[in-house]
């Protein structure tokens, strides 16, 4: 592999662009739903052959060892081309966590299998009774000899049907403050007692699942970090996720579709539409500018503060407002289940429904506003 960090930003950007334009399957550009592993497998193999599976991991563990600014360029180019997210919880969440908090034995055991595409990971955090109030989670792991015995239920587990491993937050101490009795445990999905049930969502797609644990025996060495420190470990990784959720890509893509729809419906030149459309365009441009200020923080190698909640909050609501105008413009077509005339780009009801959960997942808008009020504005209460 060439020393990518030594390239200028422009040269690196050109290299990424060449790669996605020549290798990324055209039919997978901007898919409407999260891709299942078998759908994205061919693309994964190309990324793997190039050695680009884990941009952020250090070279010694098989990553690209990219600087923060180069990682951002990579993401920007992927997004610009409409490259889909693969089931990537191993690369994005678990890898960095093991590198920071795991034992060397755990790194040697799990990291190469993530890079090879042999292990597909999913994330077991939320529970039916623990959504916004995640720390109240109740899935329990009780030590029994050399094993933890796990009982409980996780929900909103993205693509659990594709995964052979799950990393979970589990309760290991019920006698202390709720955040202080949580551990981070790695569980094989093929272990006896694990059951997965897909959930059909409002888009009639099955990307979320429930995962049930019934007396599942998990070797003690699968606990990451110290017992009862799982909450702070998981929280340490959340900031990076929030900047992804604040990316202007979703809204930019939706705005382009809104324009196509308005042209098709013959309202593009109406002053009322132009005013509302331009308002959304300005919101998007200003959002991009705000996003850049947070990206600049990462480029400097600094970590993000709680104010990154603004990004996720604003992007999610902007995405929703764009798709709401789509419904208004579409007339009766707003009620159609399928894309208009079979054109995937003209699917107002699908885009509208797709935008609904963005204010719910990854910390709901209510939670984000609470974070802004308490941790940024330092209001009392």
């Amino acid at each position, binding site marked *: 592999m060439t020393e990518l960090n030594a390239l200028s930003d422009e040269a690196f950007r050109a290299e990424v662009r060449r790669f996605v334009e020549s290798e990324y399957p055209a039919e997978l550009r901007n898919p409407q739903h999260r891709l299942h592993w078998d759908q994205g497998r061919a693309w994964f193999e190309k990324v793997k052959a190039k050695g680009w599976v884990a941009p952020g991991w250090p070279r010694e563990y098989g990553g690209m060892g990219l600087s923060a600014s180069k990682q951002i360029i990579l993401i920007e180019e992927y997004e610009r081309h409409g490259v889909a997210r693969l089931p990537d919880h191993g690369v994005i969440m678990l890898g960095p966590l093991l590198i920071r908090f795991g034992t060397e034995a755990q790194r040697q055991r799990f990291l190469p299998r993530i890079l090879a595409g042999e292990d597909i990971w999913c994330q077991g955090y939320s529970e039916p009774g623990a959504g916004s109030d995640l720390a109240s989670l109740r899935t329990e792991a009780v030590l029994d000899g050399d094993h933890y015995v796990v009982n409980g239920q996780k929900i909103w587990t993205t693509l659990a049907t594709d995964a052979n491993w799950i990393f979970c937050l589990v309760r290991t101490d019920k006698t202390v403050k709720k955040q202080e009795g949580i551990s981070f445990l790695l569980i094989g999905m093929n272990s006896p007692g694990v059951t997965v049930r897909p*959930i059909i*969502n*409002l888009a009639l797609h099955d990307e979320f699942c429930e995962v049930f644990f019934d007396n599942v025996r998990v070797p003690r060495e699968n606990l990451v970090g110290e017992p009862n420190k799982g909450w702070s470990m998981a929280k340490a990784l959340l900031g990076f996720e929030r900047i992804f959720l604040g990316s202007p890509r979703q809204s930019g893509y939706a705005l382009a579709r809104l324009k196509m729809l308005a042209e098709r*419906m013959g309202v593009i030149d109406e002053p009322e539409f132009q005013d509302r459309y331009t308002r959304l365009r300005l919101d998007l441009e200003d959002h991009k500018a705000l996003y850049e200020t947070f990206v600049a923080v990462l480029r400097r190698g600094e970590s993000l503060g709680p104010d990154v909640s603004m990004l996720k909050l604003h992007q999610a609501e902007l995405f929703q407002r764009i798709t709401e105008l789509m419904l208004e413009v579409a007339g*009766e077509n707003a009620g159609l289940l*399928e894309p208009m005339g079979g054109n995937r780009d003209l699917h107002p009801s699908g885009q509208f429904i797709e935008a609904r959960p963005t204010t719910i997942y990854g910390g709901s808008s209510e939670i984000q506003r609470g974070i802004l009020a308490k941790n940024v504005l330092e209001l009392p209460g």
Partner: protein
Amino acid sequence: MSAALEQGAEERAESIRMIRDSAAGIAARGGDRKRIRALRFQAPGFDPAVLRQMGEQGWIGLRVPEEKGGAGLGMSEFCAVAEELGAALAPEPLVATALSAALLSAAGAERPLAGLLSGEKLVLTAWQEGPATLEAPGSADAPRLFIPVAGGADAFLVPVRQDRGLALRFQRREGADLTLDKTQDGGFYGTLRPLGGEVLAADVAEALDNALDEAALGTAAYLLGVMDQAFVLTLEYLRTRQQFGKPIGSFQALQHRAADLKIQIALSRASIDSAAALLDRAGAPRAARRAAVSRAKARASEAAMLVTKQAIQLHGGIGYTDEADIGLYLRKAMVLANQFGTAALHRRRFAAEAREDEV
């Protein structure tokens, strides 16, 4: 003027209450959502037996004069039934059948009218040639779009412009060039290519104009039922769902949002009730009637979308699952908000028709 409309205010209110009760008997508010799920996305998308019950109750001909076999009741009664069916998410067509009944009644077409009023035959009006309109140009060949519940149609009424006016043609389902598209609420929009057919009347322009207004107001009332019931389910969830050791309805941010939704529902109800009362008043000028209908539909369309969207948000993750019933209300609102006129169309029409001193 029929006997029903000449009753005193108290008697009238009592008879509307009775109509609501009988509606709830067939389609209980928030009742049988398993039934709704079983019917959706499969033609015809509704239960013909329930449509027959609606016919037996006299709802399809609720607005048709008694001497023509209808019940001769007013728009207040019609909106009450529509609201109850909306709260039950009933997929059986009230508004679409009433629209056809008005045209068949105006055309004096006794036989097809009798079949329609009994709920035995589904006759649908194929008037629309473009999206977001309340005008029927009556082209000879243009495909007729967005025909609701078309999967169950036995026949179509097609308005066609001829020398003397907007003629009404009767076209059977057999042999018709009809395509169906699924809608988000589990129903079907039909697209029909007109193929001629028997002329039932030489000019139904005025009848269609009035019937489309009543359809718009009836749809507003159906949306009122949808949003009202979605709000009931959401309040239940706010009272019972626990996070951070208390019901989420105890958080002030959510309380304020619920209060705002309540205001929109109350505005919708007031707007619909006053429009229905105006339409029931003898001699109300056409412009005032149109303005009142548009005011009500503009409000109901926007409020129903707002309430059902927020209902999903307030339910959190579970609201985004297909198995949670709250999503059924959002899907219904997505289909009906733009049917018989979008909010924008009705705002424009209101601005054109309303006199400042009436506003």
